[in-house]
């Protein structure tokens, strides 16, 4: 609330509070909060940041007013880039990925890509962009920027980049690359996450992260490339990243009755697909889906997710849209239970809870740290 009041008093307050600081700005559909946490941890020392996920201007103002640190890592909502970049003048902008998310609020992903492209053009931004070269919409957004460090990371989600953002013809994806007839193609990369290693500046590093999932190696590859631009040694930063076990309650273990929970946040098709691929075969899975404003009011994205990875797991559907979820899973041929009252969930053993935004917050409130 302090942030909101500040904005009303002085519209240029964001510019004022950010002056003289080294800022890394992070945006994208998935991985903003985790990548920002990696950047703060990897940078070392005192780093300001909107680590509660308040990623619109109010959150930036509040974060910068709360700390005198000379360095800040700020995650920003995809739609707020233009305003935020001109006020914050970040040293580095990290573009993670761009795919469908909460379409009823942000409408169309291509419009967002175009917005990024405009605010990253040399006339408006002179800093460095660290960008995911595997995502054609991200490349479209960053390709005109003055300085770009392209990062090669494995990406499985292509459903939003089937047609070229320049000419609308089909983009062809092949071994490690992609291109369109019009000449738009994957750029030459500066760093890459290949299998279990990170390759950057001619050196190789074993990942060895404690955070699960190959998607976290993707986040880390972009974070370490950005930190290298800020003069942080890759080996030093990676050592710091390896000590991370939880980000805002995600990935870490929590207690609920006699159960041990691992809470995962999955709020859109690309993110959910990545999480399901990281499940252990014996995991019991509870999936909680809400459709509040912050989640997007329309849960039809569940039909964009391939749920085959759930086969063989014990699955329970929770949240206010549990019937939408159970219907989806039934049509996918996956047995599941529907539970109306989460408090009635008894038993023992460990459970992986996959929840979208507000459902995740409910489960954080319902459980306690281990």
């Amino acid at each position, binding site marked *: 609330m302090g942030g909101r009041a500040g904005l009303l008093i002085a519209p240029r307050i964001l510019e004022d509070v950010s002056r003289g600081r080294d800022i890394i700005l992070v945006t994208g559909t998935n991985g903003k909060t985790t990548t920002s946490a990696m950047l703060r941890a990897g940078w070392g020392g005192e780093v300001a940041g909107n680590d509660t996920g308040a990623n619109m201007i109010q959150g930036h103002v509040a974060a910068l007013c709360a700390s005198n640190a000379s360095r800040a890592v700020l995650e920003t909502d995809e739609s707020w880039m233009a305003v935020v970049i001109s006020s914050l003048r970040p040293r580095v902008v990290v573009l993670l990925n761009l795919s469908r998310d909460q379409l009823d609020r942000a409408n169309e992903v291509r419009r967002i890509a175009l917005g990024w492209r405009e605010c990253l053009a040399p006339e408006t931004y002179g800093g460095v962009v660290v960008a995911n070269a595997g995502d054609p919409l991200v490349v479209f957004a960053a390709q005109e920027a003055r300085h770009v460090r392209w990062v090669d990371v494995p990406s499985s989600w292509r459903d939003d980049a089937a047609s070229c953002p320049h000419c609308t013809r089909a983009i062809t994806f092949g071994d490690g690359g992609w291109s369109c007839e019009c000449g738009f193609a994957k750029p030459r990369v500066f760093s890459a996450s290949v299998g279990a290693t990170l390759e950057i500046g001619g050196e190789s590093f074993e990942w060895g992260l404690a955070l699960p999932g190959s998607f976290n190696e993707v986040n880390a590859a972009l974070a370490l490339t950005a930190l290298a631009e800020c003069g942080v040694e890759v080996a030093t930063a990676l050592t710091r990243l390896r000590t991370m076990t939880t980000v805002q309650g995600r990935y870490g273990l929590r207690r609920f009755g006699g159960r041990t929970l691992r809470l995962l946040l999955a709020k859109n098709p690309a993110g959910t697909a990545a999480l399901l691929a990281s499940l252990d075969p014996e995991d019991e899975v509870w999936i909680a889906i809400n459709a509040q404003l912050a989640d997007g009011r329309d849960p039809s994205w*569940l*039909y964009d997710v391939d749920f085959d990875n759930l086969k063989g797991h014990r699955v329970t559907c929770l949240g206010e849209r549990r019937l939408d979820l159970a219907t989806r899973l039934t049509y996918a*041929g996956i047995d599941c239970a529907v539970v109306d009252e989460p408090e009635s969930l008894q038993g023992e053993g460990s459970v992986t809870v996959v929840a979208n935004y507000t459902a995740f917050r409910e489960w954080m409130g319902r459980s306690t740290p281990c």
Partner: protein
Amino acid sequence: MLRVAVILPDLLGTYGDGGNATVLAARARARGIEVEVVPLAIGAVIAPADLYLLGGGEDGPQRLARDLLVEGGFVERVRDGAHVFAVCAGLQILGTTFSIEGDASYPGLGLVEATTTRARARAVGDMATMVSGHMMVGFENHGGFTSLGTGVEPFGQVLVGRGNDGHVDGYRAGRIWATYAHGPVLAQNPWLADQLLSEVTGESLAPWASVADRLYLERCERVSTRRSAGDRTAGRH
């Protein structure tokens, strides 16, 4: 063998409408009907099918989809006797003209006399209509205002949301059915999925109870509560 073809899922698959094929296939198989679902992505030949499904998409991809359907002879396939179930951008493409990217008007396939212009505001939210005595529930997310030609029958009467124009939603023109409802609409309305299957196969289907029926009842109840709370005009043109 029932052949269901999903038209350009890579262009018209932004709003989960690919789920309509999943639902139809599962419900057909549950009744012992063999079914093949064929996704026709960019570059694929528009193969013959009993039913073509079209979904929603963004402006640029919508225009490209229209061009590819013209080139691929989709209109001829439909005139040969195929059924079509179209949602949102799909609904607009089958019509005479539609507006994209600002207010530029673009020719549709002309299969149905329906013209779409850009509405003053986007319609985003739960929607409900009456379709031949059934309540149909779904979610709309579009900037179109669609007018039907004389004699074109709407698909439903709007109870909540905008649909075509705040009064009616979609159209039913012979074997071509269209609505603005996502959800996916056949997932939220199992009776409609069965009606469409019956229509395409010419068979009457045995009941098949599932959790989808519970979902449908829950959505209807929710919409009725909203409607009695005077929410009807939300999203009007």
